[in-house]
């Protein structure tokens, strides 16, 4: 805790100013970027940090999984430079995506602009964003589930200086242009990141000019303390103790190698006073040649922070709380080296999206024993499907994130048909898809009847049915086909996800949750069933009014009402 005194009113004003800067950076990045993944899906992050990488503020529009890792990017760059005997100089701008040194995974590239005051390094302005391609073995940056090591995932940037003395380091940009597919789009997005980070640095500098470094430092120390205080208060209210949970992910269900399937994620949470530790001991060993390992810093730590924050400082109850490094101070995270959650280079990590969300879910499962009123039962995980097709001059790629659902919650049913825990993207309108791509959407509805039963039932996933109107292909990076979302406190478990291929002959076959590039002939349909969340509490305690309403709304069938809920019809 810092002991420097600052006028509380001025502190409040400076806190607002810092948030405005991160927001302005986000607005600029979103507006300047070339690709829809940043502008539409909002898969980007912006933040300011101090000179050591402690996060001071983040853009509220950005995706949690992009802004959360920013401190790791800064610390990674500082460590890398130290190892090289190098240091940050005024006029430098760095590019970084090393998942073994702070970055979230290869496609999420960070750009860092240092801020100086009287020649002393005082902070960083940072932007991160998901790029459509970083030169991996096959086109794109999702569904690359067959990368054998870190080198197969694309270009690796380890604290690469892309500007020096405020001048572009041209050779670096040349390498980018010649090794990335769709360079206009991707390099354009990178340039947008640089511009947005520069604006942040400029504004940060203006703020220092206006109030003086000492006041700004005191104000953000106060801000970090403030967030820390809130988190400590929240942890303090959690009963002391150790809470353990484990879950399993599919891995590669169609593989003959048993080591690639049924992969365990374990989390042990200890609460002592206002401190909380999370230990992932017991999690399966890393997989040396499949990219579902998770970077410890940048994916695992963020998944845990975000989940704990959503449970303990739920914004629905606490309002919007400044996201900064103070919030994570009371939390310590460890994972055994060489495990899926702390792999050793060069194990591949590019498809860490679904396992990371499973870590988040496991942490919630452990916390459910400590704060049962603040959690949901098991969530349904997500699946990323890349549709593609076309010929040389008219290639197209279309990415859809297939939503999951939440488990039942204390006092209310689970959320239906949403992205879960650390992900929060947007789908594409059917009328947009069909107007632009040789795809037809035949169904997009709630998946009835299969929710986890309970006092408060799990949320419903969706059923989506796509038809290829021309020859094309799919790649799939998903999970949750084998293990059902867990029920809580007597609630039933939810239902697994499914992906089916319906041939023109109406022959239906089921697909595994991970598929590298697979050609699909015209007239074929892809049916995607989203998971339904787990139930919360015993179904015998469900309010008859809710059962009646579910029946009327055709969320459950009469048979379920009778057999599961003993309702007399």
């Amino acid at each position, binding site marked *: 805790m810092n002991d420097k005194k600052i006028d*509380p009113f001025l502190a409040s004003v400076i806190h607002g100013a810092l948030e405005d800067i991160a927001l302005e950076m986000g607005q600029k990045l979103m507006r300047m970027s070339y690709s829809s993944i940043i502008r539409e899906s909002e898969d980007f992050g912006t933040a300011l940090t101090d000179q050591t990488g402690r996060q001071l503020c983040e853009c509220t529009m950005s995706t949690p999984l992009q802004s959360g890792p920013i401190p790791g990017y800064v610390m990674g760059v500082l460590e890398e430079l130290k190892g090289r005997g190098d240091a940050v100089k005024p006029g430098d701008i760095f590019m970084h995506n090393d998942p073994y040194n702070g970055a979230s995974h290869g496609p999420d590239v960070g750009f860092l602009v240092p801020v100086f005051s009287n020649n002393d390094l005082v902070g960083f302005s940072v932007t991160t964003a998901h790029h459509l391609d970083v030169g991996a073995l096959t086109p794109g940056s999702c569904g690359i589930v067959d990368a054998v090591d870190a080198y197969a995932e694309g270009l690796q940037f380890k604290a690469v200086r892309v500007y020096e003395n405020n001048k572009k380091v041209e050779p670096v940009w040349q390498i980018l242009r010649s090794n990335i597919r769709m360079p206009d789009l991707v390099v354009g997005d990178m340039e947008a990141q640089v511009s947005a980070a520069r604006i942040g640095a400029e504004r940060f500098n203006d703020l220092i000019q206006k109030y003086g470094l000492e006041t700004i430092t005191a104000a953000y120390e106060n801000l970090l303390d403030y967030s820390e205080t809130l988190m400590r208060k929240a942890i303090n209210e959690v009963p002391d103790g150790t809470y353990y949970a484990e879950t399993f992910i599919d891995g590669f269900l169609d593989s003959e190698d048993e080591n690639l399937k049924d992969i365990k994620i374990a989390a042990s949470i200890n609460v002592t006073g206002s401190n909380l530790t999370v230990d992932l001991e017991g999690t399966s060993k890393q997989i040396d040649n499949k990219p579902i390992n998770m970077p410890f810093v940048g994916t695992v730590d963020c998944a845990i922070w975000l989940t704990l924050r959503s449970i303990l400082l739920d914004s629905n109850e606490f309002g919007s709380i400044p996201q900064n490094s103070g919030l994570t101070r009371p939390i310590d995270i460890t994972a055994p080296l060489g495990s899926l959650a702390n792999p050793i280079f060069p194990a591949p990590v590019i498809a860490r999206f679904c396992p990371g969300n499973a870590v988040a879910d496991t942490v919630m499962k452990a916390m459910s024993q400590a704060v049962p009123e603040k959690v949901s039962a098991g969530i349904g995980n997500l699946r990323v499907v890349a549709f593609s097709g076309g010929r040389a001059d008219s290639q197209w790629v279309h990415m859809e994130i297939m939503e999951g659902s939440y488990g039942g919650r204390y006092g209310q049913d689970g959320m239906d048909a949403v992205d879960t825990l650390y992900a929060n993207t947007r789908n594409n309108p059917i009328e947009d898809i069909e107007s632009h791509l040789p795809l037809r959407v035949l169904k997009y509805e709630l998946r009835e009847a299969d929710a986890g039963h309970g006092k408060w039932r799990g949320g419903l996933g969706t059923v989506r049915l796509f038809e290829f109107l021309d020859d094309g292909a799919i790649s799939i990076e998903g999970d949750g086909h084998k293990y059902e979302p867990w029920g809580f406190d007597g609630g039933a478990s939810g239902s697994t996800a499914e992906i089916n291929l319906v041939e023109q002959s109406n022959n239906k076959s089921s697909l595994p949750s991970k598929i590298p590039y697979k050609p699909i002939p015209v007239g074929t349909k892809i049916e995607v069933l989203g998971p339904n969340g787990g139930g919360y509490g015993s179904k015998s305690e469900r309010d008859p009014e809710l059962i009646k309403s579910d029946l009327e709304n*055709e969320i459950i069938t009469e048979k379920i009402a009778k057999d599961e809920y003993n309702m007399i019809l």
Partner: protein
Amino acid sequence: MYSIGIDVGGTFTDFFCFDHSDQKTFVYKTASTPDDPSKAVCAGLEALLTKYSIKATDVSTIFHGTTVGTNSILEGKGAKVGLITNSGFRDILHIGRHQRPQHYSIGQEIPWQNRALIERKFRKTVNCRLDSSGNEITPLDEKSILAHLEFFEENNVNSVLIAFLFSYRNNAHERRVSELVRDQMPNAFVTTSSSVSPQFREFERFTTGAVAAFIGPKVTGYIDNLSLTLKKICQNAELRIMTSSGGLATPEMIMRHPELTLLSGLVAGANAGLWLASKKKMKNLITLDIGGTSADISIINNGQLNEVSSRNASISGYPVQLPMIDIHTIGAGGGSIARVDAGGGFKVGPESAGASPGPACYNLGGSKPTVTDANLVLGRLLGDRILDGRMTLDSQIAETSLKEVSSTLGSNINQTALGTISVLNNNMASAIRSRTIQKGIDPRDFSLCAFGGGGPLQAVGVAEILGINEVIVPQAPGIMCAFGLLISRVEYHSVKTLLMTKTQFNLSTLNETLSEMKSYLTSIFERDKADTKLICFEAFTDLRYVGQGYELKVPLNSDVLKLEDLEQVWDAFHKQHKQEYGHNFLSADIEMVSVKLKAQIKKENSSDEFSFENSIDETVSRLNLPNTKVEFSIDGKPQSFETEIIDRKTLTGGTQKAGPNVIYQEDSTTVVPPGWTMSVDDDLTLRLRKLDNNNE
């Protein structure tokens, strides 16, 4: 002949009456009647007519802003709605864009799920489907509809929405079903997604339709009843209703399209700001309307009010695809409460003491310190001059209310009061930044126009933070919304989705579409019995680079385009893209997503004739008050200044005074701090300028 603007606010219903024959203005205020707003409207109207001896038959037009639709959505009290949609797509309204409103929350509600406008049991499907060009791939199965309608009737559904995919391309199926519904359920409100918003993006279009159906019976009932009652009072008066786009509509139009009233009660103030900007020849103006619980902000950029971008348009968490002026409302006003929160941080608002119990100094039972209490303690409000002395504020109680926060923070009362004002002002500046700096607009190129009871009290503080050097305060800041109604015009909009790219462009399709839209809008004006010779059209198009997900609105210079006009349109888009996003792609293909046509009826007599000049109520005596001590913050430290107290009624055109001074009037107080000067325009508008930049 008289025109009367009637604005219904949360606390007061305001009347602004203009006598066209001798250019006189009359104003009147009465307490609102939230249970049935038309009560205060009618009672107030009668009182106004009596007070100023106006002959009821001489009233030619009544302009009205209503919050009936807005409140119906905000409070979740609306119709029992049924939906008829395509098989396979029953839950479009429920799934939405599959994004949670809050990143960090397990317990959050999802408005379109937890507060569904149409319950799942009333969402019914029928076999029918169009492709993306509007061609039928599955014909409409009419036979299956009857059973749905019987179910609706059994369950007292009183409003029905028909919403099909691609109906913006071809509305035949929606129209046919709506005929069937009207036949079967003659008393129900019936609407279709294509009539409400013929634009692509099914979730947003269907939701807009659902909003219309949800508020439909209530709004149409209110307007129907109000027209009848007003006809009884003023037999010759035509009623005109404010719409969210800043234009007026006839009651007949609102009966068909109640969704146009979503922001009816909010936009009139922005229109008044626009009128003032044009009168003062100011191209850039930010309006700041501060009331008891909230502040409304609008931006006039280059002579136009900013509209909400289609991506951000929503009400109460439901997305809507409608032309709406961008009124940014934040929870910051006189009643905003100052407090120290759980983490030890100092916060002001959004919690508000409201009108009841109100700020502590009202002495109506409130004990929490508010912005009004802080202003009173600092000497910026005159406790005995509120509403010309009809209300008094107790500064002793105000001081007491601030004690607890002060001692928690270890500061004194004045510091806490100044801190409260400073944090409030910063919150408002932050809201303005989100609509300017963050969109590539520099607020320093703007003046700030302050109105509402609290606007002129805070405006200079907010301006200082943003680097704005000029604040203007209209002559009657408390009735700007009622005035704004009076100077607005009847205006209708039409929109069509095209999705046509530059490389495969068919100019005649565009011109045919525009011509269809023109005849459609003209037919509405004919229905209104308006003089169609007075219609003026403005055409716009929404463009994006192929592959982009959101569009920019670009004006079309004509409603019949030639090839060279089209080139100008593409050029304008590239330019605007660069201005808004910092770059453009000159060689990329452009997609014309939709075309929009706006039709306005020009006023026969220009609106410039209106002024507030004769609105002074001469019956209230003028007082000469002695100077008092007022606290201001100088370099972050409280400092006391001998301050002149001025009765606004004594100020005449040409007067100039250096700050600090406090100018009071019946329903507002203007604060001019040290370092600023005040001058009075001939129309009695106050102009406050920062001294350093005042050396012309």
